[in-house]
């Protein structure tokens, strides 16, 4: 009996682990061989490199602290597709269906944005961003322990194409 309960608990835990990142993973797989889409993946190993650094200035310290709790980043993006708005609608529907809590939306005739999160015990474990409009589409997922205050800082300092929209979250919330 005890074994049975143990396996049920384990099954629920596993389901939770697999559920995280499921939307980004499905888009990653779907567009893996499509050259119109750029796929970006930053692993926890990359983020852990920053945690071992000694900060020389206050700005460096701020950046390292923001990055140190991240476990990974995945992004699928395109900047020359014809049906970006339709893909945006589909991706936002997929994100909502997967149980993410909506944090913020920006509805703009040219380009719309959605920020959603997955929380566990008050800690944000995943942030998903969807951007779509014109010919541009971005689906981004950031894993780890996420402090929303530092998102714009990370977006600014990482200098990765597509991340610049993350910075808008903090700015637009003011």
């Amino acid at each position, binding site marked *: 009996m005890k074994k049975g309960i143990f396996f049920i608990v384990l099954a629920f835990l596993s389901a939770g682990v697999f559920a995280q990142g499921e939307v980004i993973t499905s888009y990653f797989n779907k567009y893996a061989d499509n050259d119109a889409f750029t796929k970006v*993946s930053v*692993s926890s190993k990359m983020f852990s490199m920053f945690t071992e650094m000694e900060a020389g200035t206050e700005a460096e310290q701020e*950046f390292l602290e923001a990055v140190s709790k991240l476990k990974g980043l995945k992004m699928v993006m395109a900047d020359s597709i014809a049906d970006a708005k339709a893909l945006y609608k589909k991706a936002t529907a997929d994100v909502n269906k997967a149980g993410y809590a909506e944090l913020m939306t920006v509805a703009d005739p040219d380009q719309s944005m959605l920020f959603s999160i997955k929380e566990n015990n008050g800690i944000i474990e995943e942030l998903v961003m969807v951007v779509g409009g014109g010919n541009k589409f971005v689906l981004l997922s950031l894993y780890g322990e996420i402090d929303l205050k530092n998102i714009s800082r990370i977006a600014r300092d990482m*200098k990765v194409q597509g991340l610049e929209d993350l910075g808008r979250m903090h700015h637009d919330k003011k």
Partner: protein
Amino acid sequence: MTKSKILILLFLMGLLQPLWAQQEIISQYTDSVKTRTYCLYPSTLRMLDLSENHEFYDVVNNIEKLVIYSLDSTAGADKSYLQMIKAYQEIGFEEYMAMYGGSNLFLLYGLEESTTGTFIGVYQQDNQPQAFYLKGAIGWNKIPELFEKFQEGDLLNIFQLNNKKRGQNPHHQ
């Protein structure tokens, strides 16, 4: 030779072999697809920084060796570099970053040792694939600051040294 000396010798050989093997994989792969090889050490890396930027020095100061292999177009077309990366994964290298699709290509894999590491990767520059092998430590935390401060022309582009307009400054064309 005493038994203990033989044991120490065998132990050292065992330690050195994986280090040698690490560069051997990329060397073997690039043998048939490389068009040019650039081998850079700390002193030569610092020479690339035309504006003597302090952040650049911090980033490259602990790099022991950087080898860049320019690959021919067949390597880009058939993605044969993925086989090389697979071989590195088999000896413990892990993915740090991957960006691919369209004209974008940047793959970075690494194996961390105590204070330094070995990194290999592939990226695309001017539509030509390049593979690299890097041994040492990179000042990762200085990179964002470096990007902010670098102006076009601050770095000597070694890939333009042998182009058709030889003798001209590649940044003032």
